[in-house]
């Protein structure tokens, strides 16, 4: 397997790094010795078919899944053995696939859970910032989150993550289930946060086109290992550029 | 010498209890808290049939086995679809209800006064009237029960129960009638629990509800867990250990008043320690995971 060559576009400093990760569930091996670097202030889009290990990689970085082998580094310090909450305190935020919220807490309480690390006086201000992004949440302020529609729940979950003002942001399909317009806005917002605050982003997205447009760099995973990368994500939007990762050896089969 | 035979009688009784419970807990993976209820129903049914209907020991025992097996369906059929701690709770409820009935249905069971003067079992007209004879008697019955249970456990029936324990969805996907098999195993185990009940009644010649409490169910669970669930040797070792432990304490000249508590403390701590480091028990293969 080819090692990840890393030529980071934006900066030479590494925001996030994984080394020879092997991980899986029970005996099921998903990540097979994956190495990857993300520069500080960089948006990297992870591309690959289902089951390639994108979500698993994010879970390992967030600390929800202990890797069998390998290490995880955040801003130059190893965090492989740290519990989840300490990683969060070090500036890592993780948007879980599917947009999980606390269903029996109100929208307001959910956002307050996202803003726990602010002193109480500053919370409201921080929350207002997120609300300007998702005005629909304001309308449902006192509703239990479990009663929200899918799109609103997704927005709430994203709001909770953005409240953390992270240094490194792990996004697992943030726009899934959202209307195209809102999806676009959200990704644009991610880009904006990145530009203004220098947040490092590792992005997994079903909408590959949008992801590639917003990212500085793209990495393709296939079968739990690094397959390719590009500094010009837009180049992968060309017809057929991604076929090798998603559809494999088409030509061989077509020939037979 | 009688002392030794007495202990062996008790071991025989608990071996049947533990092996039958193992069919439910160790093989099928159902942690039931009402095995002592079946033990009690068996004891009372045998006793009442002997004393009120004037039947002999063996006909009474057979009827008690059937009755217990059938009564077990009352709790088994509805609650087997419950999972994990909800199933445990349902069986706990059943245990307490059975105890309450034994305790309060005075016209039938004499309630808290218990039933004294239970007739001595006869085998081919010979009364089993010494402790030694009772040891032989209970030993033969325990051996016979063990043989039957061993045949069940080493058969395709035992194997499919284990499969259900390991993964009931996969078992269903292979065409196994999971609920039917669970209910069957539960009823068989309950039926077998009637045997030690009858042996106990015939041996003590007196029964009252306090022998069949929730704590007795817990005691049976402790036997399985300390010896180990899911195979044959674990429950046997567990039963011997749990019966012998208080006797061992007695030999250490610990006063009876303290020894009673001390042995319970030892059971309790053993449970904690085993669950932490060896949930499958000393000799078992299944650890309730």
């Amino acid at each position, binding site marked *: 397997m080819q090692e990840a060559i890393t030529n980071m576009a934006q900066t030479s400093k590494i925001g996030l790094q994984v080394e020879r990760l092997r991980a899986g569930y029970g005996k099921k091996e998903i990540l097979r010795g994956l190495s990857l670097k993300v520069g500080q202030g960089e948006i990297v889009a992870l591309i690959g078919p289902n089951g390639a290990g994108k979500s698993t990689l994010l879970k390992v970085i967030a600390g929800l899944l202990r890797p069998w082998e390998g290490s995880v580094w955040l801003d130059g310090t190893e965090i492989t053995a740290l519990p989840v909450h300490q990683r969060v305190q070090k500036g890592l935020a993780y948007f879980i696939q599917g947009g999980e919220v*606390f269903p029996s807490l109100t929208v307001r309480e959910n956002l307050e859970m996202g803003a726990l690390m602010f002193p109480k006086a500053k919370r409201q201000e921080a929350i207002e910032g997120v609300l300007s992004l998702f005005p629909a949440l304001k309308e449902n302020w006192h509703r239990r989150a479990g009663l929200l529609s899918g799109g609103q729940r997704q927005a709430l979950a994203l709001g909770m993550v953005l409240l953390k003002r992270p240094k490194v942001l792990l996004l697992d399909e943030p726009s899934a289930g959202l209307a195209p317009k809102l999806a676009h806005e959200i990704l644009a917002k991610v880009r904006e946060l990145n530009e203004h605050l220098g947040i490092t982003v590792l992005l997994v997205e079903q909408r590959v086109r949008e992801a590639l447009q917003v990212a500085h760099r793209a990495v393709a995973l296939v079968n739990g290992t690094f397959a390719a990368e590009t500094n010009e994500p837009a180049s992968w939007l060309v017809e057929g550029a991604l076929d090798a990762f998603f559809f494999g050896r088409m030509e061989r089969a077509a020939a037979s | 010498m009688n002392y030794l035979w007495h202990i062996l009688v008790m071991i025989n009784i608990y071996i049947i209890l533990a092996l039958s419970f193992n069919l439910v807990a160790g093989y099928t993976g159902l942690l039931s808290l009402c095995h002592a209820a079946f033990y009690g129903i068996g004891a009372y049914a045998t006793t009442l049939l002997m004393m009120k209907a004037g039947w002999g020991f063996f006909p009474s025992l057979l009827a008690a086995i059937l009755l217990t097996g059938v009564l077990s369906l009352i709790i088994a059929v509805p609650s087997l679809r419950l999972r994990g701690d909800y199933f445990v*709770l349902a069986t706990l409820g059943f245990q307490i209800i059975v105890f309450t009935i034994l305790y309060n249905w005075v016209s039938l069971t004499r309630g808290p006064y218990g039933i004294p003067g239970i007739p001595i079992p006869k085998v081919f007209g010979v009364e089993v009237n010494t402790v030694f004879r009772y040891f032989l008697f209970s030993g033969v019955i325990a051996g016979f029960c063990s043989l039957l249970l061993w045949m069940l456990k080493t058969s395709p029936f035992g194997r499919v129960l284990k499969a259900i324990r390991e993964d009931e969805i996969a078992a269903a996907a292979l065409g196994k009638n999971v609920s039917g098999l669970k209910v069957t195993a539960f009823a068989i185990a309950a039926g077998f629990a009637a045997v030690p009940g009858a042996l106990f009644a015939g041996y003590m010649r007196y029964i009252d509800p306090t022998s069949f409490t929730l704590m007795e169910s817990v005691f049976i669970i402790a036997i399985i867990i300390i010896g180990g669930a899911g195979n044959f040797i674990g429950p046997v070792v567990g039963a011997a250990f749990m019966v012998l432990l208080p006797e061992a304490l007695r030999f250490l000249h610990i006063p009876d008043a303290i020894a009673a508590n001390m042995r319970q403390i030892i059971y309790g701590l053993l449970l904690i320690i085993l*669950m*932490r480091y060896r949930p499958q028990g000393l000799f078992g293969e299944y650890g309730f995971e």
Partner: protein
Amino acid sequence: MSRPNLKSVKREIADAFMEESKMLWQLLANGFVNGCLFALTAFGFALIYNTTRIFHIAHGAIYTAGAYLCYVFLVKLGWNMPLAIILALTLTALLGILTELLVYAPLERRGASLLVALLSSLGLYIALVNFIAMVFGNETKVLRPGVEATFHFGPIILTRIQFAQVITACVLLPLLLLLLRLTDWGKKIRALRDNPTLTEVMGVNTRVVRLFVFALGSALAGISAVLSALDIGMDPHIGMPALLIAAVALIIGGVGTFEGPIIGAFLLCILQSLVIWQVSARWMDAVTFGLLIFFLLFRPQGLLGQRRRLEEALT
């Protein structure tokens, strides 16, 4: 000749009727007072069960320990009541913390099943209760000798302790519910109940929250035990019925809710009073656990809980 007689018969009937209704009122009042006590225990149990999913049987032993700790300080050492109670409750909370640290947390780290935790809890219950019995003996102990002052409210008579029990519960329970709503700790506890993974991802150290929950839940069991012991005394086995009622109250009130177990406890205790009135105290347990089985089979989500989707159970 017959007239006065008839009158007296009428009066007798009326008296008997009055007595009967008086008794009902008194029984209902007793049910309510018991409800207050068991609601505290049930709330503590629910706090632990809802957040950790551990069926904490040892809660019963911790309940017993609370009463005996108070006994040590109050009777054995002769300290004054407030000091004795506060110290007893602190130590009870500590016992809860130790339980989590030494018994449950290692199992949680190993990823052990809930049945394993339940069995450990059972072991801890047995060990603790028998330790208490070994030290203090099996006989009933009283915290306060003598007859209590009584209060009359219409047909109802309450002792001073019963009055204190009602006051404590009526202050503490709403306060606790409010704290769960309004404080950060409360939110963390409810968040942990809803979604442990997301709680961690929000940067909360869930281990600390669990410790807090065990401390608080155990202290509540302690309060309930001390209040009960002040009234009717104690023996080493008072914990099991308390635990069982708490567990049944949680199931019928609704697992996952915090109001549910409180309502469940009151309903259960009042129902028990009615059983005493109409049937007999001896069948109380059968009715309680019959109700438990009924709920488990036909309404497992309880009165207030939400039904889990069938499909979730499959995966």
